[in-house]
């Protein structure tokens, strides 16, 4: 009798452990993909790609934004087992089975993908294949490592940013977005946004191939917004607040948020920012480094101060050293006299 109890309890313990271990990965795995894909050694070796792992760790998957989306919603052409050798890459704009709240249409990222496609980051037919490759696609910015960091304090301190993009959606839009982010437990801190954009835009070697301002990031960092953000002031504008999140257009595009005609609207677009911004205020907020070409007045003011400071301090230092030298000299001479 005790032996039976012992045996049963082991069985129960095993079951509990199995359930506990597999639970996180099972959340959206209705088709049991992780039966195989949780195996650490699952993968292939091809001459072109080398070793390629197909492992989906339960930890990463269950904490990802897409943990409630079943695998085949995105991996649409995997319909047979064993899977075909060549499968299409995941496209973010495809509709998946999740429906929008209060709507019957399938959810997709098509709106964002469309904005991205016509933005400066989108495909440009005049560019070579490599040059187009060098631009960020959806997954460059929305990689799992970036999106999935769970920071509650960040979520709270950044909720004011939601209103900047969702102003047109009204209160319902804001609530939806905030609840969606809270549900997903994801939010980007402003400083992370700057870091993400800087990963390309601060890389002069990378950016040289494009016709853009190479001092954007350093210019932002010397401006008040950049400095205050580094000191933890989260309500200052990060890159996306002025340059938009997906529809990033160059300043000479009339639809751009930073086009001279629109920049006043951008600065004043919500109450958190400069809601009463004037046109003259708006154009003063540029953040490139001043040069003799783009802003000669500022360039000379800056150098004027450097020369004034260096010159003044040189004279004062000289005076101090001479004064101190005379004092030391007097002591030395008095000793010699003795």
């Amino acid at each position, binding site marked *: 009798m005790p032996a039976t109890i012992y045996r049963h309890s082991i069985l129960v313990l095993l079951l509990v452990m199995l359930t506990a271990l597999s639970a996180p990965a099972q959340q959206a795995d209705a088709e049991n993909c992780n039966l195989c894909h949780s195996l650490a050694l699952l993968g292939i070796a091809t001459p072109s790609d080398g070793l390629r792992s197909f492992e989906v760790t339960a930890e990463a998957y269950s904490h990802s934004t897409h943990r409630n989306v079943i695998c085949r919603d995105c991996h649409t052409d995997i319909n047979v087992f064993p899977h075909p050798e060549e499968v299409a890459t995941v496209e973010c704009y495809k509709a998946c089975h999740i429906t929008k709240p209060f709507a019957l249409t399938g959810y997709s990222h098509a709106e964002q993908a469309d904005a991205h496609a016509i933005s400066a980051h989108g495909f440009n037919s005049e560019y070579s294949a490599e040059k187009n490759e060098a631009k960020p696609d959806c997954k460059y910015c929305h990689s799992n490592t970036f999106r999935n960091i769970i920071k509650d304090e960040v979520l709270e301190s950044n909720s004011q940013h939601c209103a900047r993009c969702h102003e047109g959606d009204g209160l319902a839009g804001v609530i939806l977005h905030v609840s969606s982010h809270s549900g997903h437990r994801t939010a980007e801190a402003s400083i992370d946004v700057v870091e993400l954009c800087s990963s390309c835009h601060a890389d002069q070697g990378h950016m040289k191939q494009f016709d853009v301002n190479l001092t954007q990031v350093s210019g932002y960092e010397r401006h*008040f917004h950049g400095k*205050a953000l580094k000191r933890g002031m989260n309500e200052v504008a990060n890159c996306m607040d002025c340059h938009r999140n997906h529809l990033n257009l160059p300043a000479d595009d009339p639809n751009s948020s930073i086009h001279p005609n629109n920049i006043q609207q951008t600065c004043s677009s919500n109450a958190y920012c*400069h809601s009463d911004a004037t046109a*003259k205020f708006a154009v003063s907020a540029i953040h490139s480094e001043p040069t003799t070409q783009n802003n000669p007045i500022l360039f000379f003011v800056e150098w004027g101060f450097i020369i004034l400071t260096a010159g003044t301090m040189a004279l004062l230092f000289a005076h101090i050293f001479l004064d101190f030298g005379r004092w030391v000299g007097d002591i030395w001479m008095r000793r010699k006299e003795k």
Partner: protein
Amino acid sequence: MSRDYTRFTMSQRLQHIFMFVPFIILVLTGFPIKFPESEFWSVVMSAAGGIEKARVIHRFAAAVMILDFAFHILYLGYNLYKKRPSLADMHLVPNGRDGKNIIENMKYFLFLSDERPRFHRFSYIEKFDYWAVFWGMFIMAGSGIILWFPVLFSKFLPGIVIQIAYIAHSDEAMLALLAIIIWHFYNVHFNPRIWPANKVWYKGTLSEEEMEHEHPLELEEIKAREEASK
């Protein structure tokens, strides 16, 4: 017989205190933003309670300093109006004696002469300090107020003025801080002839000895005047 000579009145000493206390607070709450990546200024920033609080403290201290300076301007105006001093009695106005003193001091520094220049009430060093603060107040308060209300000022000033204010505030602050901690502190603390400190800022008086050493010409004049009135 040793006696004390009044150098600064109570009002003047208070004006100095209401200038330097806000100055220290302004440096501690401003420089962490000028150098956002500096570890040293990070410590200062957290001591001030973070950037949000520091910004409020900075503006409060600025208001105190500006009021102090405004009081000083009124004080100057009142005294000029009431006493109608001659140019020779306005001891802070730079004059030919300063040029002469600079040359004498350089000769003394370079061992070309053993005579220290005989300073009057204010040496050229002290005049420089006074006028440096005078100029600095206009630059710092002017640019600071523009940065405090940038949108308001953009209504009647060109946009470039805000950018200039941003640079001027940051760079003039650096100049002011360096001038104070290097130049002013040397002259009133670290100068071995003064060390450990010149106490006139709170005592308001100099001893006969100090007067003889630092302001012999003024002492001579005071004594001559006293002789004449006897």
